[in-house]
């Protein structure tokens, strides 16, 4: 299997992912509405009923501003995992057979899918940038580009994770399970909704093994760039964040490709 051929396979899978994404208008709407709901209903609700003590040193940071990167991360998480796990739907509706019987290396299929998901997530992140003013976040061009880059990388990782899970799941029944034991905890522990400072040790430990924690921290790093008050809310340096996110991307794409290649 030469490089040109492999590239063609990756492109084919990527192409299908994009066609499906652009065609599904309700998904577009969902992309905007879900984060909007979180920001406006949850964010505004919490902000107006509780004092945000998260910011150390008496910095004046509104809860909405804090929450915005978390909501972007949440959207990336859901989209990426759902898209990856979408392989189960392909299995259920039969399309996967067309892919599996084709004379192509299956790992290339998995990589094409991960890249397709990364692209989808990138587009989604671009849309979410529009919501920044609602959260009183001012974005420079550099920050905006940073957000897109981090989102694409995190989407690539989590999409690969979804592919790995779907490759080992024979039916849709397992889907709810994945949601409950993996996706929701990943979301809650990631620091999207509350700062990870001053947590009980066990909770803090769990938060630190959550891959999304580093993704969201990276987002905060690029969004609160340049001495904004909210910088105090950042956990790690951008270097650490990016290192972890990149390492995870490499690890998870290998896992996804391996799981898809060796699926029963």
């Amino acid at each position, binding site marked *: *299997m030469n490089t040109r*051929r492999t590239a*063609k*396979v990756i*492109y*084919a899978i990527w*192409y*299908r992912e994009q*066609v*499906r994404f652009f*065609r*599904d208008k309700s998904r577009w709407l969902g992309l905007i509405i879900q984060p909007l709901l979180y920001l406006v209903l949850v964010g505004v609700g919490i902000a107006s009923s509780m004092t945000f003590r998260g910011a150390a040193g008496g910095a004046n940071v509104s809860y909405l501003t804090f929450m915005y990167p978390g909501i972007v991360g949440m959207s990336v998480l859901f989209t990426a995992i759902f898209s990856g796990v979408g392989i189960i739907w*392909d299995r259920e*509706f*039969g*399309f*996967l*057979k*067309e*892919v*599996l*019987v*084709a*004379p*192509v*290396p299956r790992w290339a299929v998995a990589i094409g899918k991960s890249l397709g998901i990364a692209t989808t997530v990138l587009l989604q992140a671009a849309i979410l940038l529009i919501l920044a003013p609602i959260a009183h976040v001012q974005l420079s061009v550099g920050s905006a580009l940073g957000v897109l880059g981090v989102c694409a990388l995190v989407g690539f990782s989590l999409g690969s994770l979804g592919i790995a899970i779907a490759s080992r799941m024979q039916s849709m029944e397992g889907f709810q399970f994945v949601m409950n034991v993996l996706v929701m905890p990943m979301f809650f522990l990631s620091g999207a909704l509350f700062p990870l400072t001053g947590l009980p040790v066990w909770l803090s430990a769990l938060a630190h093994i959550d891959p999304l924690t580093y993704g969201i921290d990276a987002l905060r790093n690029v969004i609160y760039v340049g001495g904004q008050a909210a910088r105090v809310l950042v956990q790690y340096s951008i270097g650490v964040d990016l290192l972890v996110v990149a390492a995870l991307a490499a690890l998870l794409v290998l896992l996804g490709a391996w799981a898809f290649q060796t699926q029963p």
Partner: protein
Amino acid sequence: MTPEGMRAKGTTPGATTMHGATAGTATTTQRATVQGPAARTVATPAGPAAGTGPAASRAGAGPAIRVDGLTKKFGDFTAVDAISFDVRYGEIFGFLGPNGAGKTTTIRMLATLMPPSSGRAVLNGFDVVHQQVKVRESIGLVFQDNSLDDRLSANENLYFHALMYDMPAAEFEPRVREVLSMVDLLDRRHAIVRTFSGGMRRRLEIARGLLHHPAVLFLDEPTVGLDPQTRAAIWEHVKRLRDGFGVTVFMTTHYMDEAENCDRIAIIDHGHIVALGSPEELKASVGEDIMSVGAADPQALAPAIAARYGVEVNQGPDGLRFDVKDGAAFIPRLTADFPGQIRSVSVHRPTLDDVFLQLTGRAIRDEEASGLDQMRMHARAWGGGRR
């Protein structure tokens, strides 16, 4: 429609039944039917030299498919039981059998989608277990059930296929036009598959399966639920692939008249191959013309007929059945010998149905109709049937 297609249809031995007609007129009708286009010319499989298409590359000198003791077990249940056969390059090989016989399971094993429990299969010179990608490079497959992406348009599904099978970009447009015209979907080329009817989806699946020209093409019940014109067009195309590109076709079917299009047929039942040969050979193995006689009192008439002509009489789905040499000429004699006792007579040439019936004791179409089996039990009880 081509003469080929017409002949295929003509071969379906329509049994003409006469009800209360005089013997004389009946005979002429019978002759017309029976002497119709009876013998089908077997298309000679393309020799090694004949048109090896660009994509239909052959590897090795052996058969296109060699199956040796192939077995698939699901738990305790043996779906495919140590079957062995060869499929030659350039032939249309049919797998004929009732629901659950193991046809799809066999295809899945040959197409590397399911590992065999035991046994071996070599396709285009490549082992289906150890050289999976090589095997997949050699095949095309039309699945029995949906494998389209219904959110994509027809064209997008085809484009995806072309990419996955590394079709040269220049060939895409002409081939798409060719296969979509074949299944009469050219005008729906850019419509989303979700908006297609079941038959249209089926046609698109077949079009996609024929888009590239593999060495071996698997068609799992390709034409179920399609109208006769579409079926004829698809057959024409399949034969063109065989003759022009040397594509070997392995297909499964329930349709007897379709099986007649095959160069050779394996009849499979409960995971066993019970017969293998050309349609002519198989039908010849059943033998003579089959008479079906509706009687006023079958219980009495059956032994009488058996005694009179020295034949075995069975209770068939459409009356008493027995075989004679020249059925059409036999009708007047029968009606003269048993005046007033016969309600109807029909005669037909043995069909693949009859072959199956003889080999398994069941009709291939009426798997669920256990009433039929009960009738046959009766027949055996009093008729001393041969089955």
